[in-house]
């Protein structure tokens, strides 16, 4: 039935709380269905010289048009919701981790979006991508999950080797925590 592919596309995303892989096949099927319906609609209108006085012709034309609009709305909602989920998934700079689940266009969009947020932060001179949670204390105890090398702090260089514990200023290590290199303990 017309509209089934679009419904399946939306349902596929709705069922999943995380981000499922980009369903290129279903999107292609919806595009194909829209194109077929559009050709049939144009042929119908040409056959009656755009005269929709006959209710059967007018009803059929409206039906085709409404299915086309519904299919289009479903796919646009699918794309937009995927963008919101990718935006909220946390660290966007490690796009490689999302390789299997995103389309090439989504990867490009995410990279451009990151750049847009960075430009906005430069304009207002406030980094909106940091301090995502209210600060509880100045200092945090963290465990190093992956080797981070050496970072400079106001107390001198700190070597962040895997499985070591450190008591450091939150502002110095916030980015590393967001990226998953450090795990807060307290």
């Amino acid at each position: 039935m017309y509209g089934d592919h679009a419904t399946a596309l939306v349902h596929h995303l709705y069922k999943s709380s995380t981000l499922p892989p980009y369903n290129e096949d279903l999107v292609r099927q919806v595009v194909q269905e829209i194109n077929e319906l559009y050709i049939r609609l144009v042929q119908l209108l040409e056959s009656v010289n755009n005269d929709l006085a006959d209710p059967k012709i007018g009803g059929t034309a409206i039906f085709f048009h409404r299915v086309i609009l519904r299919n289009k709305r479903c796919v646009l909602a699918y794309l937009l919701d995927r963008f919101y989920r990718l935006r909220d998934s946390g660290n966007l700079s490690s796009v490689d981790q999302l390789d299997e689940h995103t389309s090439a266009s989504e990867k490009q969009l995410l990279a451009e979006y990151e750049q847009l947020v960075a430009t906005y932060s430069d304009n207002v001179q406030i980094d909106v991508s940091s301090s995502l949670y209210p600060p509880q204390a100045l200092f945090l105890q963290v465990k190093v999950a992956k080797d981070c090398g050496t970072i400079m702090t106001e107390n001198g260089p700190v070597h962040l080797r895997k499985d070591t514990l450190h008591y450091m200023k939150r502002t110095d290590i916030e980015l590393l925590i967001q990226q998953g290199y450090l795990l807060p303990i307290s």
Partner: protein
Amino acid sequence: MEESYETKEDINDDVWRLRKWLVNEKCCNDILPYQEELVTGLADLCQFQQSLVEQMTESDDFALVLVKNLKELELERIRYLLKEYLRTRLRKIESWLFYLWRDKEKWSLLSSSETEYTKQLHQLITSHFERSFLSGLPEKLRTIDERDGDNPPGNLDDMDEFVFLYAAKEIGNVTTDPSSQVTSTIHIRKGEVVCLRYSVAKQYLLDESAFLL
């Protein structure tokens, strides 16, 4: 309530106002005016405090170390408020992007940076739509602003939804439902918490005589 919502008239008044505006932004699905003076003023104060903190050299005096740490923590908290306020507004722009694009009068409520952000984001999203989907359709179907029945793409939530309002000042008599044929008014005194339709409460948010909870 765990803390007083009384207006604090001291040097931290701006911090209190920013916090109220942040809660207002989080509690309503409406585009509120950007508080430019407030944000710029606090950002400048933060920079000044940062310079004071940097001038405080390391010392063995526990009192000095404590003062330095307290100033830094206060700085971090105010910076968090600023960032969260800007983030919340950006999220709203992202959620209501196509509504804003249709109703450009609302752009007067945004800052110049937010307006630029809106334009750029719209460009990014529509390019993504083109690449992923619209380019495969006939040319007459490639626009995004078509209506699907009675539903325009992107719309704000119902402006008549109920919200909780705290009166920071004496407000007086308020008509609770102007659209109803039955007139109903309540008297709102300073310090009272009331539940009103957002469309009625909005004017009191804008003149800061009340704020959302």
